[in-house]
């Protein structure tokens, strides 16, 4: 028990208003390595912990552009370089006929990139995570909201941080074992 590492301190709340307020005050108090948990997406909550730029859109755009260019180039290369076939004197690079496959490839790669990017940035799949060690945490998929201060935060102090979180009038506070 004495050598056990601590991942962070977790405070539990019972309403979306309370958790947004608590997250905002935690951020204002100078804590930066924090996270919040809610049973459904709350835009204000990610704003409150200072998370503004999630980075999914550029990945999706890159995927879409790759699909678009790759899809067209494949058809162009096949029909003009690799195996040109003269059908009734039509141009080899008959690009209007290639638009549909190009479009479908744009959508396919853009969509897959958006999802793969979202999972990658979120670090999923991740079979183990310390937060699941806290028994109350299973309430996060029901009706409970949480604010977590990581022990790696420069301001983190086992006593001080706990006192601060208690000041936010949470439903409960738990130490998260790593």
């Amino acid at each position: 028990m004495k050598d056990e590492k601590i991942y962070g301190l977790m405070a539990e709340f019972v309403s979306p208003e309370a958790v947004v307020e608590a997250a905002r005050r935690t951020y204002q108090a100078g804590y930066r390595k924090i996270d919040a948990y809610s049973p459904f997406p709350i835009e204000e909550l990610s704003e409150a912990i200072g998370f503004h730029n999630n980075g999914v859109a550029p990945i999706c755009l890159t995927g879409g552009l790759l699909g678009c260019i790759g899809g067209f180039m494949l058809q162009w290369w096949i029909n003009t370089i690799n195996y040109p076939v003269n059908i009734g004197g039509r141009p080899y690079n008959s690009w209007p006929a290639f638009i549909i496959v190009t479009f479908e490839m744009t959508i396919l790669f853009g969509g897959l990139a958006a999802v793969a990017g979202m999972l990658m940035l979120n670090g999923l799949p991740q079979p183990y995570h310390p937060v699941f060690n806290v028994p109350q945490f299973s309430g996060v998929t029901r009706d409970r909201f949480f604010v977590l201060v990581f022990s790696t935060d420069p301001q983190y102090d086992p006593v001080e941080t706990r006192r601060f979180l208690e000041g936010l009038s949470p439903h409960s506070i738990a130490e998260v074992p790593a």
Partner: protein
Amino acid sequence: MVQAIEVEPGENKAPVMASGHTFGSITDKVSAMVLTRPLTKGWIFGFAICFLILQWMLYAMCWLFFKGVGVWGVNIPIGWGFAIVNFVWWIGIGHAGTLISAILLLLRQSWRNSINRFAEAMTLFAVACAGMFPIFHLGRPWVFYWLFPYPNTMNYWPNFRSPLVWDVFAVSTYGTISLVFWFVGLIPDLATMRDHAEKKWIKTVYGMLALGWRNSTRHWSRYETAYLLLGGLATPLVLSVHTVVSFDFAIGIVPGWHTTIFPPYFVAGAIYSGFAMVLVLAIPIRKFYHLEDFITPRHLENSAMVMLATGWIVAYGYAFEAFMNWFGGDQYESYVRWNRIHGPYAPWYIALLMCNILIPQILWWRKVRLSNFWLFMISMDILIGMWLERFVIVVVSLHRDFLTSSFGMYYPTQFDWAIFIGTLGFFTACMFLFLRLLPAVPIFELRSLLPEAKAVEHE
């Protein structure tokens, strides 16, 4: 006047969710459908029947593999027959699922949130049914991968100028994106199932599927962006898929096919039949799973209104098709019009007009839109009507084209029927399994519909 401004439009409509629910009660009610609900006799009986029908299809498919497509009624001049009729019909049904999940997401229609999950599942299973037909129609289905461009020793490539190859790309992209969209929507709910399951092995299975989702607000933020982007990409995709399907016909020169009205008219018809299928599924599901709180009369009525609107677009398509046949002055096109009304398939065409245009007009009455029984019956009627439409487009156009010497008739065999009805069994068996194993209503989206959740957003 002041009063009138304050009244929200649609205030007299039924709510999207019954009142009195909390975050917890929604979670419990939906997860209980899977986790604590015992196997009922009704479920076992229904699944068994569908499974038997599926076996009938497998028998017919074995015979088809063994003997070749000759076991079907297809022959020159009607080479397309039931396989393509069913393909177009099924893929059209899938479109409503994507419409609900993607287009209504972009339009911020909150009534989509309780029906989108099973509508997306419906899309997936419908696309799976649709995909079978062109593959089996290939004649040599075991080399279906020749349709994709891959380097091979034959130095062979697909013909990218052919609408049939466009179709391969459109349908496979559509299937993939629908699957991804559906799975991404499921991830947070799989985490809910993981946390609410009692048995260890059930927890493990849902836990693996949930990928370790923990409702972190950073994750939610990326999740919402990815979901919205997928919705934005799926919207043009769904419109393109039936457009490309209609190109299979419109690019050809067969009278009755070679027309520019096909893309919009096919897309509208797809949504028309898709919403009919949504209602055919939603009405029994809400009754047997007691989901009246989440699938309210509002959902049913809105779906009925979408059917009414798309039904009129389809009617416009029929009218304009007939007008252009006459106005174009082409004798073969004129003959198509005459042949549809007076030829050997006239009863099918008349039945199609009845099912798709005449009967659905009773949806103008609000009482009908609010009656489960009548909505169900009209939806079945539309499904039949849309199937007949595809039959008329495929068979009636092909059976008499330019030369009287190549006129013919199409008679479906027992194998045509077995595979068609078999896919219905496959589809419903998949729906039964889906309802049993996965949360059929998106739990986290319902939570965010509650007024308590809204209080934050308006702060």
